[in-house]
């Protein structure tokens, strides 16, 4: 619980995000503290992705958001947020499909490079150390990668900007279970390296295992919140999000996530 007492990196109060004409997120409030993994779980269509897009400046957001201790008027642009130390790994990954793996990574450090930081090579080496598979494929086009490698590349690209706060949207989406575990292991490691993480996941079981604190989102609002371990024991969460209870199968049977790629 100690991480909850750390200073807040991001505080959102009464945030509403509209997608088109529909307010997909209505009046949610939450905070993320330094060195913490905060998870938002909930069913498909609950508004999780929309919330992340709003936080990252990709969609217009109403309400108050303090990032890194500062509010801002007018709302900052995506690029300003990237520079301030926020990173988003979107559900669709949004890689540069026809560029090589290495180019994708180097572009991840584009803003730092533009600011005159010429330490991209070190960052690149770190990323390759974290994801050895990417090193092997560094001259391949991103489009030719497997689903897991794409997720790694997306994470690697975001890390190249040395973010302080990383927003992850469905990192396990479309991945084989083994790969999913690998990804979650890396998320855990990032936390130990001091990156704070907001994790949106349908795979509630895995997310709650990893997270320090969690929110349950349904139809655009938070319906439950609490330390992740407590939520994982909550009856309602168990029934609704942790799979097939009260059935005879293993308790951690995970449900599939919904949006698929093919």
């Amino acid at each position, binding site marked *: 619980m100690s991480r909850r007492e750390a200073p807040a990196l991001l505080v959102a109060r009464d945030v509403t995000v509209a997608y088109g004409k529909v307010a997909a997120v209505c009046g949610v409030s939450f905070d993320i503290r330094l060195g913490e993994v905060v998870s938002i779980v909930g069913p498909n269509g609950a508004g999780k992705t929309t919330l992340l897009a709003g936080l*990252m400046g*990709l969609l217009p957001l109403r309400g108050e958001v303090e990032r890194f201790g500062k509010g801002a008027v*007018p709302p900052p*642009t*995506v*690029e300003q947020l*990237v*520079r301030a130390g926020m*990173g*988003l790994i*979107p559900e*669709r990954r*949004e*890689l*540069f*499909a*026809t*560029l090589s793996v290495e*180019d994708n990574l*180097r*572009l*991840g450090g*584009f*803003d730092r*490079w*533009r600011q005159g930081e010429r330490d991209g090579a070190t960052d690149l080496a770190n990323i390759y150390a974290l994801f050895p598979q990417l090193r092997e494929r560094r001259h391949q086009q991103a489009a030719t990668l497997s689903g897991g490698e794409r997720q790694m590349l997306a994470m690697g*690209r*975001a890390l190249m*900007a040395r973010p302080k706060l990383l927003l992850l949207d469905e990192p396990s989406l479309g991945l084989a279970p083994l790969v999913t575990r690998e990804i979650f292991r890396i998320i855990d490691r990032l936390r130990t390296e001091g990156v704070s993480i907001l994790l949106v996941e349908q795979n509630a079981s895995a997310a709650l295992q990893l997270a320090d604190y969690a929110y349950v989102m349904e139809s655009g609002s938070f319906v439950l919140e609490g330390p992740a371990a407590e939520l994982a024991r909550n009856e309602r969460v168990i029934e609704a999000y942790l799979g097939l209870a009260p059935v005879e199968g293993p308790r951690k049977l995970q449900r599939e996530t919904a949006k698929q790629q093919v």
Partner: protein
Amino acid sequence: MNLDIALWLSQDAITNGAVYALLAIALVLVYTVTRIIFVPQGEFISFAALSLASLQAGQVPGTVYLLIAGGILVVAADSVGLPRAVALQRLPGRLIRQMALPLAAGGIAWWSASRPDDLWLQIVATLAIVTPLGPMVYRLAFQPIAHASVLVLLIVAVAVHYVLTGMGLVFFGGEGLRSNPYSSLSFNVGVLNVTAQSLLIVFASVTLMAALWFVFERTLYGKALNATAINRTGAQLIGVSPSFSGQLSFALAAFIAAISGLLIAPTTTVYYDTGFLISLKGFVGATVGGMASYPLAVVGSLLVGFLEAGSSFWWSAFKDSLVFTLIVPVLLWRSLATPHSEGDERQ
């Protein structure tokens, strides 16, 4: 028709095709990065050619004033929406940043106009005047509506074309101008009388294409542009804003157009509205490449060059008709080659 004639026409086709290819590349660049069909490209060609001719006549071209006015408007546009105190506080910095280039370009132009024989200075001045106009046009006309539909962007592009054409007429008048030849050398290769001028055009085009290739393949700025063309959201997430890539692509495109203008300025009479038709032919070339592929755009432009040379020989009255009808067989071929098309689907 014999071989000599074929050679004559080919030489012409290649020199013209090289210019069209440059323009086609700029059109593809701007379209893939910003979804804007860069109609005002033609005006940048005319502006460059006519500015050069004006400088050679010892006059400061009107485009300089346009550049300075544009700089002021950009500062104003950047300050809109900010609280007054913030706007005032940032004003001096902005003025210095935005006005430095226009004023420097103006200074060079003024200096150059007083030295009508210094060709290099004239070229530098022309490039310095025309290139910054590109990002200014993007900033003022397109950046506020960067998310609009392709159709709206196109209509705005046409409107900007009207504005710039009108200004071209005000600055340079209705009659055409022609600048001094860079070199009057020519030599005979077989039956061909090759002018240094046409060699220069081909050489400059190839060099510029190679330079662009280098920029896109080897520099992070070029890759960032390319990345925007591939995935707009992805580009935003690495800190490349649409306005950054838009201004950068417009700067490159204006630079390419300015070079094209400089190349054709001594070979033909340039009017305030000449650029539009030239750029339209580059557009045909780009179309052959589906507005997406640089190599195919170059091939298409050379094709336009050859078709133009050929039809001006055989059937000159219908030349332009033929050149633009070229699109139809290309479309027919594409239509037969891709029997089933899904159209766009908003997923």
